[in-house]
């Protein structure tokens, strides 16, 4: 490049001009990216801001952005009317326990689909995926009737089982892609050296797969936490989850915008934290491990 520029000075100036032009358009594109990002995050920022406003300041037109901050919205949410704590605890129970169950079932299954694959393992893998494609709503009624028959309606264990079935395919796909990264030669070498299976799993497989387990857990947690349809139909007062509790805000009730925003913030906070923590693994999880 330098040799060429030394020989022909006119091209050099053209080069610099092109370079400046490219840099300028680069800056412009960067600014556009920032504007788009701000546009997308704005509703969430607005939700946080409104949750810290008083009800009167929250319901003005034009909006009062710089109104004094207060915790009244949160006080109303936690103190006024039905307490959100039982639904929040139910959501935590359902999400955590179903995630544990998913891992217990998915890890051995993924092992049998990757490290020591069974015959027709791709068919099995696609069976798991196909269960995700069948609409949940089409199986809801029999589940409701069976639950009613055995007295499991409004029981958190019913949700735990259903959330496990909802997330198991995702977890199997994700865990399979993580386990597939374990190099086969190392496992062979270990077994030749007389390493027992539990020891191989503990010392070789686990360290490689642990980040994958963490990512899988977070994805399963988020999906269980967000679920509405099952919880809405199958629970009432006892096993109600946080999203079901939120549906009580569907119809307007006078001045309640700050309270709604506070509720939305409280219920979304665990997912926001989990999601930001797993940002790097989020893509891999959402694409069922197909995208690394």
């Amino acid at each position: 490049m330098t040799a060429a520029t030394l020989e022909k000075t006119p091209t050099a100036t053209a080069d610099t001009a092109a370079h400046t032009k490219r840099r300028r358009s680069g800056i412009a594109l960067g600014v556009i990216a920032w504007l788009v990002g701000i546009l997308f995050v704005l509703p969430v920022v607005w939700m946080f801001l409104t949750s810290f406003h008083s009800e009167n300041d929250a319901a003005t037109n034009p909006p009062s952005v710089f109104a004094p901050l207060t915790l009244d919205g949160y006080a109303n949410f936690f103190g006024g009317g039905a307490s959100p704590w039982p639904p929040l605890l139910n959501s935590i129970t359902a999400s955590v326990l179903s995630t544990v169950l998913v891992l217990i079932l998915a890890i051995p299954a993924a092992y049998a689909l990757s490290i020591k694959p069974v015959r027709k393992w791709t068919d099995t893998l696609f069976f798991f995926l196909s269960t995700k494609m069948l609409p949940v709503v089409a199986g809801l009624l029999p589940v409701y009737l069976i639950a009613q028959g055995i007295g499991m309606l409004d029981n958190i264990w019913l949700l735990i089982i259903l959330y496990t079935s909802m997330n198991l395919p995702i977890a199997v796909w994700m865990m399979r892609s993580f386990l597939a990264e374990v190099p086969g030669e190392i496992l062979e070498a270990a077994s030749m050296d007389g390493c027992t299976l539990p020891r191989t799993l503990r010392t070789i497989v686990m360290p490689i797969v642990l980040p994958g387990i963490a990512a899988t857990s977070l994805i399963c947690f988020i999906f269980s936490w967000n679920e509405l349809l099952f919880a809405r139909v199958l629970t009432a007062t006892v096993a109600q989850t946080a999203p079901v509790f939120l549906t009580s805000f569907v119809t307007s009730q006078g001045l309640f915008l700050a309270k709604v925003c506070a509720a939305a913030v409280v219920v979304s906070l665990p997912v926001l934290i989990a999601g930001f923590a797993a940002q790097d693994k989020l893509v891999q999880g959402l694409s069922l491990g197909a995208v690394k």
Partner: protein
Amino acid sequence: MTTTAERPVGTPANTALQRTGQWARRAPLLPALIFMIIVTQLPFVGTLVISFMNWNAYYPDERGFAGFDNFVRVLTDINTRNAILTTILLTASVVIISLVLGMLIALLLDRAFLGRGIVRTMMITPFLVVPVAAALLWKHALFNPEYGLLNGVLTWIFGANAPQPDWITAAPLTSVIIALVWQWTPFMMLILLAGLQGKPLDVIEAAQIDGCNNWQVFRHMTFPHLRQYLELGGLLGSIYIVQNFDAVFTITSGGLGTANLPYTIYQTFYNAQDYGRASAAGVVTVIGTIIIATFALRTVSSLFREEGAR
């Protein structure tokens, strides 16, 4: 072991061993497989059976076999047909708009610029708001005609005489679509950004040196490379948005022509207690899904084979 003596040809002991080996391999898979069959497949059999029954929980005495009556009622019912159309329209528009937006934003974020990580984090945020909470946010804090942010901004710009549309009433389905696009664009963007970051840089650099302009590079190199990621995003997005219940339930409560199939089935079963008809609608939905899923699965499996071949 005695069988070995009886059969001179072949190695039965070996086959027996192989069989035991196969079962040992299968064993870790079985709990998950059995669990899935019981919890997800058996209910569908139940739905299939009930779809042929005359069963309304309000009239328990009239329960009985109905033949194809429920299906005839479902397929001739204007509400169901509208629900099918709404489902297709809702799913297609949300998936296509968020794919296009997601791709444009992914292209923007694929370049180095100041604060790229922060912009990426800002972009992901909508996807991490609990769906019901997001729907409430749009319904009350943004779309509300009196104190929503959208009309508030209009007042800022145009003053006291600003137009103050009632967004949800004026354009109910579009409102739902906007809220869903806001949540799903980050999802598409993430998958496509991951795809972009795996594109063959050396080839693109060579093309640029050879004098290809940006559009040519995009058209002939980046886009073909992105295709499989677009397909994957489209497939996963469709799976989730076809089943959307939260946004329809929260923003419009299924009113004003926004009731999609999941919402309609929910209502037939939960409010009208018409079990037979709800099940027939469920079976119709499943058949529709299977048709679409067959194509979709083919797409994923090709992606998957490529990954395996690598």
